[in-house]
């Protein structure tokens, strides 16, 4: 008493769809962190420092151990602006 193959098609679809989301999410995480372990539980200081890394290296996860800042670094500091409510 064999199982008809039509009964297995939905399972194939379920496995494929979960696979697509899983692989897609892990690929996004891997590429977004440039192959390093993701940062977690970041506070304001960490976020500000990562924005500074972005200004120095061009990516949020890029790191540079030397002293010399890239050209124009001293004037690229952004001021956060907000509209006055009153």
């Amino acid at each position, binding site marked *: 008493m064999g199982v008809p193959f039509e009964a297995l098609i939905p399972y194939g679809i379920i496995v494929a769809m979960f696979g697509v989301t899983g692989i897609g999410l892990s690929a996004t995480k891997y590429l977004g962190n440039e192959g390093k372990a993701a940062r977690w539980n970041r506070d304001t200081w960490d976020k500000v420092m990562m924005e500074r890394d972005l200004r120095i290296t061009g990516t949020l996860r890029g*790191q540079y151990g030397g002293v010399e800042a890239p050209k124009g670094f001293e*004037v690229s500091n952004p001021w*956060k602006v907000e509209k006055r409510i009153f």
Partner: protein
Amino acid sequence: MSHRQAQFNQHVLVDTTPMPDHIPKVEEIGTTSAPLMSAAYFIGDRCKAFNDDYMKCKAEANGRGELECLKEGRKVTRCAASVIKDINTNCLKQFNAHWECLENNNHHLFECRKAEMDLNQCVFDKLGLKKTIPDTPENVVPVHLRAKQLYSRFPGPQW
């Protein structure tokens, strides 16, 4: 309110006007977060006097510290740059190993004690800078010298 982030801060203002000519120039430090974290205690060891001087100046300037403490600020920048330059020339291998470990472990110092011990040893031998955690009680082992790191991924003996 320095601890509060601006709300709805889509607007960013980048002012590309350079500093006026009558203010002496200083090279900004281009080191990123993980190497700075790694070198922090050595910067603190060599530059404590300059840093304290700057903080005192700012505290006494009644909110005009950004303008009036530029001279002290330049000293702070130059001192930190000298420390990082010295570490890079003398202990590049250990320094790179430590900050790459930090970068892979969410900048948690307690995950990288082995690399940190090597770096501390090298920096102490070559530059004479020692990592001390301020206000550690006399009768306890400082946390970075404990063999077991309770909260790290591998809590057993670290080296």
